[in-house]
C-alpha cells in the first residue's frame, strides 16, 4: 500500500494518460465512455489522498524516474496544486455520467471513442500542468491539453466549430510559445527549470540580469493570460465554448482556465514572488485594469448575447476577471477570494454548462429567443440553471457570495473601496443576464422548441443537480473551499519576499 501511496503523484497523471491511449482503441462509444468514466473516477481518489497528505503533513516531492531535482523532473504537490488537482478531477468525475448521452447525442458513433481519448488526454494534461514542479514539463502538458482541446472543440456539430478550433489553435500556440520563451529566459538566467529551484536562484539572477528576468515574466504572463482568457486576450474563448460539444464546453469551462490560473499563481507567487518584491513587478498594475475591464465589458457582452452558451462564455471571461482581480490585490482576503472563486466558479460554470447541454439535448437549441417557457417544460434542469445562476451572481448563502465577499474584504483591506464597489456593481450585471434567461424561461409562452422537451434522463440530470447543489452548499459549508483557499493564500503570501 505504501508503495502505491508513494507513487501517487505519478499515478495522478499516468493513469489518465495511459487510459487515453487505451480509449483510442475502443471502438464502441459506450465502452469508451465507461472506460473514461472509470479512469476519471480514479483521479479524484488520488487527488484527495494527496490533499489529505499535504494538509496533514507537508509538501509532497516526487522525483520522476528517481532523478533528484533540479536535474530530474519533480512532481511537487503543495496545498495549492493539491487543491486544484482535487477540483479538476472531482468536477470531471461528477460530469462523467452526463457525458454518455450528451456525447452520443452530439458526436457520431465512430468518433465517440476518439472524443473520450481526447478528453482523457486533456484531463491528463491539465492534471500534469497542475502537479508538475518543472517549468518545461508544464509546457509539455500544456501542449498536450491544448492539442486535445482543439480536437474536442473541432468535433462540435456546428461548422463554426472548426473555425473556432482553428483560431484557438493559433492563439493557443502563440500563448504556449510565449510561455516557452519565458521559461527559456528563466533558464538562461538561472540555469534551472524547476519552479522551486528557479525561485531560490532568481534573486541572485535578477540582480545580475534584471531585464531578462522581467522579460521572462512578461512572456510567461502574457502566454498564460492567453490560456486563461484574460481580457482582451479572451476572444478565442466564446466561440470555442459555444461551438464545442456540450460536454467538452462544460469540462473546459470548469477546468482548463482554472489550471491556467493556477499556473499564473505558481509563476507569480512561487517563482517570482519568493525572489523579488512583487510590488516592484508590474503584475498588479496590469491586472487591475484588465480584470476590471473583463468584469464589466465581458459581463455586458453577456447581457446582449442571445446564444446562451456564448453568454455563459462571456460570463466566464468576467468571472476570470474577478479571480485575477483577487491576485492583483495580493493580500490575504483578496487571494483567498481568488482561489475560492477558482473553485466555486468551476462548480457553478460546470453546472450551468451542463444544464445548457441538457437543453441542447432535449430542445435542440440554445438560442434564447427560441426557448420561451423552457423553465416549465424542463423544470429541474432550469431550476438548476437558476440556482447556479444565483450563485454566479453572488447571492448570499451561495458559493459565489463567499468569493465575492472575500474579494470585497480584500479590496477594503487594501484601502481600495472603489474596487469593492466595482466588484459588486459588476456582479449586478450577472443579475441582468441570468434574469433575462429566467424571464424567457418562465414568463414567456412556451415556444415550439421547448414544447416537447422534458427533463433529461437521470444520468444527465444527477451531475447537473450535484454541481448545482455544490455551488449552493459551498456557500454555507466552506471548509473545503474557503478554508483551504485561505490556507493556500496564507502559504502563497507567506513565501513572498
Amino acid at each position, binding site marked *: 500500500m505504501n508503495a502505491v501511496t508513494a507513487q501517487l503523484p505519478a499515478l495522478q497523471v499516468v493513469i489518465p494518460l495511459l487510459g487515453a491511449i487505451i480509449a483510442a482503441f475502443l471502438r464502441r462509444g459506450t465502452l469508451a465512455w465507461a472506460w473514461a468514466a472509470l479512469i476519471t473516477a480514479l483521479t479524484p481518489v488520488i487527488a484527495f489522498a494527496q490533499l489529505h497528505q499535504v494538509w496533514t503533513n507537508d509538501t509532497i516531492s516526487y522525483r520522476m524516474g528517481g532523478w533528484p531535482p533540479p536535474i530530474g523532473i519533480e512532481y511537487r504537490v503543495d496545498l495549492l496544486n493539491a487543491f486544484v488537482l482535487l477540483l479538476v478531477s472531482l468536477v470531471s468525475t461528477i460530469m462523467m455520467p452526463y457525458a454518455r448521452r450528451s456525447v452520443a447525442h452530439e458526436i457520431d458513433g465512430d468518433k465517440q471513442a476518439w472524443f473520450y481519448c481526447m478528453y482523457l488526454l486533456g484531463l491528463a494534461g491539465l492534471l500534469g500542468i497542475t502537479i508538475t514542479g518543472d517549468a518545461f514539463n508544464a509546457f509539455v502538458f500544456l501542449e498536450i491539453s491544448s492539442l486535445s482541446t482543439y480536437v474536442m472543440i473541432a468535433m462540435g456539430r456546428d461548422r463554426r466549430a472548426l473555425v473556432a478550433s482553428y483560431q484557438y489553435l493559433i492563439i493557443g500556440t502563440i500563448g504556449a510559445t510565449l510561455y516557452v520563451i519565458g521559461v527559456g529566459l528563466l533558464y538562461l538566467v538561472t540555469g534551472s527549470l524547476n519552479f522551486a529551484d528557479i525561485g531560490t536562484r532568481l534573486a541572485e539572477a535578477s540582480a545580475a540580469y534584471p531585464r531578462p528576468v522581467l522579460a521572462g515574466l512578461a512572456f510567461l504572463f502574457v502566454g498564460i493570460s492567453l490560456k486563461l482568457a484574460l481580457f482582451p486576450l479572451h476572444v478565442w474563448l466564446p466561440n470555442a465554448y459555444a461551438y464545442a460539444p456540450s460536454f467538452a464546453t462544460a469540462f473546459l469551462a470548469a477546468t482548463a482556465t482554472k489550471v491556467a490560473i493556477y499556473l499564473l499563481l505558481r509563476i507569480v507567487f512561487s517563482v517570482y514572488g519568493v525572489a523579488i518584491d512583487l510590488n516592484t513587478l508590474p503584475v498588479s498594475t496590469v491586472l487591475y485594469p484588465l480584470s476590471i475591464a473583463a468584469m464589466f465589458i465581458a459581463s455586458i457582452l453577456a447581457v446582449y448575447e442571445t446564444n446562451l452558451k456564448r453568454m455563459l462564455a462571456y460570463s466566464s471571461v468576467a468571472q476570470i476577471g474577478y479571480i485575477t482581480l483577487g491576485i492583483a490585490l495580493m493580500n490575504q482576503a483578496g487571494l483567498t477570494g481568488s482561489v475560492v472563486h477558482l473553485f466555486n466558479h468551476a462548480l457553478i460554470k460546470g453546472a450551468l454548462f451542463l444544464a445548457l447541454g441538457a437543453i441542447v439535448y432535449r430542445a435542440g437549441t440554445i438560442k434564447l429567443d427560441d426557448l420561451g417557457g423552457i423553465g416549465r417544460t424542463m423544470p429541474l434542469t432550469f431550476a438548476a440553471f437558476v440556482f447556479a445562476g444565483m450563485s454566479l451572481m453572488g447571492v448570499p448563502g451561495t458559493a459565489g457570495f463567499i468569493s465575492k465577499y472575500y474579494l*470585497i474584504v480584500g479590496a477594503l483591506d487594501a484601502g481600495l473601496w472603489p474596487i469593492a464597489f466595482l466588484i*459588486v456593481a459588476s456582479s449586478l450585471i450577472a443579475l441582468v443576464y441570468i434574469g433575462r434567461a429566467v424571464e424567457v424561461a418562465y414568463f414567456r409562452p412556451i415556444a415550439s422548441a421547448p414544447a416537447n422537451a422534458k427533463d433529461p434522463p437521470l444520468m444527465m440530470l444527477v451531475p447537473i443537480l450535484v454541481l448545482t447543489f455544490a455551488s449552493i452548499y459551498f456557500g454555507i459549508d466552506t471548509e473545503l473551499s474557503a478554508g483551504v483557499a485561505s490556507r493556500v493564500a496564507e502559504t502563497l503570501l507567506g513565501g513572498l519576499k
Partner: protein
Amino acid sequence: MLAFAPESLVIAALTIPLIGALLIPLFHSAPNARESVTLATAGALTFTVWSLLPHVLAGARPAAIDIAVVPGLNIAFSVEPLGMLFALIAATLWLVTSVYAIGYMRGNDEPRQTSFYVCFAVALWATMGIAFAKNLFTLFIFYEILTLSTYPLVAHKANGEAIRAGRIYLLILIGTSMVLLLPAIAWTWVLAGTLDFTSGGILNGKTTPFALCALLALFAFGIGKAALMPLHFWLPAAMVAPTPVSALLHAVAVVKAGVFTILKVVVYIFGIETLAYAGSGTWLVYAAGFTVIAASLVALRQDNLKARLAYSTVSQLSYVILAAAILTPISAVGAAMHIAAHAVSKITLFFAAGAIYTAAHKTEISELAGIGRRMPCTMGAFAIGAISMIGLPPTAGFLGKWFMLSGAMQTGQWLPVAIIVVSTLLNAAYFLPIVYTAFFEREPAAHAVGAEAAHEHGEAPLPIVIALIFTAAATIGLFLFPEVPHALAKLMVGG
C-alpha cells in the same frame, strides 16, 4: 404549549414554512388539499411564533443554529424583541392572508396557483430568517432570499407589465443590496470585527463621525426594501402582483423587512447613542422626511387604488425610518410600534382593494362611486384602515406617531414634528376622498357606464371578507391593547 424548549421553537419557526413550501407542490392537482397545507403551515407557524413570545417577554433570547460559514460570517439565529415582534406580525398576518388568498386566487381564476403558494411560503420562511437573524450576515442572506422568492410573485401575471415590474423589482432590490448593503456589511466587519446584533451597537468609538455617516447612507439606501426615495419605485411597480402579494409582502413582510433591518442596524449595529452623539444621523431625517412628504404628494395624484396605497406605503415606511433617525429610545419604540401598526392597517387597505377587484373588477378610485353601499364590510374596513393611516385614535396608526412625536419633541427636533404634521394632512387628503367616493357619491346609472361596467355585485367571497374584517378589527384592537408590541419595543431599547 410551553413544553417546547424555546430553542426548538426557533428551529421550528425556521423550518415550518420551508416544509410547507416543499409539501405544497405535492398537492398540485388537489387544490383543496394544497390550500389546506398552506393554512396548516401558516397556522403551525403562527402557533410556534406566539409560543415563543412568553419566553422573549420573560427576557430569554433563545438562540438556535450557529454555522460558521467563514470565520466571522456565521449563520446564526437568536430571537430578540424586535425580531419577535416582526415574526409575530408576519406569521399572524400570513395566516390571515392565506385565508384571503384562497378567496382571491379562486375568485379571480388566477393561473399557476401552486407556484404562487410555494413562493409565498418561501417568502415567509425568508421573513422568519430575517426576523430571527442573529447577525447582519444571516439577515442579509434571508433578505436576498426574500427578494428572489417574491420576484416570481411580482411577475406572476407574466404579461409585459408584470415582467417589466419584475425587472425593476429585481434590479432595484438586488442592485441596492449588492452595491450598497453588501459593501456596508463588509465595511462594518472590517471596522468592528463582528456582525452580531448587540445592544448598544458595535461601532462605538470604531470610526469617525463622517465614516459613520457614510456607512449609514450605505445601509439606508442599500436596504432598498425600505423604499427610501429615490429607490422607491420598485414598490409601485410591484403592484401588478396579485393582491394577496401586495397585501402581505408589499405592505407587511417585504417592506417591513426593509425598515426592520434599518431599525435593527440603527439600534443594534450603530447604537442609538453612538449615532446621536456623533450627529451622523441628521441627514437621514431629511431623507426620510422628504420621502414621507413627496410620496404622499405623488399618492394624491394616483387614481389607481393600489398605486395610491403603494405610495402611501412608501410614505409610511419612511415614518419608521424617520422614527429611527430621530435617535431617541422612545422614537425607536415608535418605529417598532409603527411597523406593527402599519402592518395591520395597510394589509386591511390592500385586502379591501383586492376585494373590490374580485367583486367588482374595479381598480380605479374614480370608479368606486357608491361602492360602499354594495360592499359595506369591505369599505368599512377600508375606512378604519384609512383612519389608521392618518394616525388618528382609536386606531393603531396613533401609536407609532405618538412615540415619534414624543421622541422628536423630547429632543427638540422640529423638522420631524413638522413632517408628521404635514404628512398627517396629506394622508387625510388622499384617503378621505376614497372613503367619501365609496360611501357618499351616487353610483352611476347603469346606462351611463355601459352594461359591462354596471356589474351587479355584493361583497367579495367569504374568505376575503373574513380576512379583512379580522385585520380591521386588529387595527382597532392593537390600539386598545398595545401591550405586546409595546413591551417588545421597550425591551428592544433596553427599558
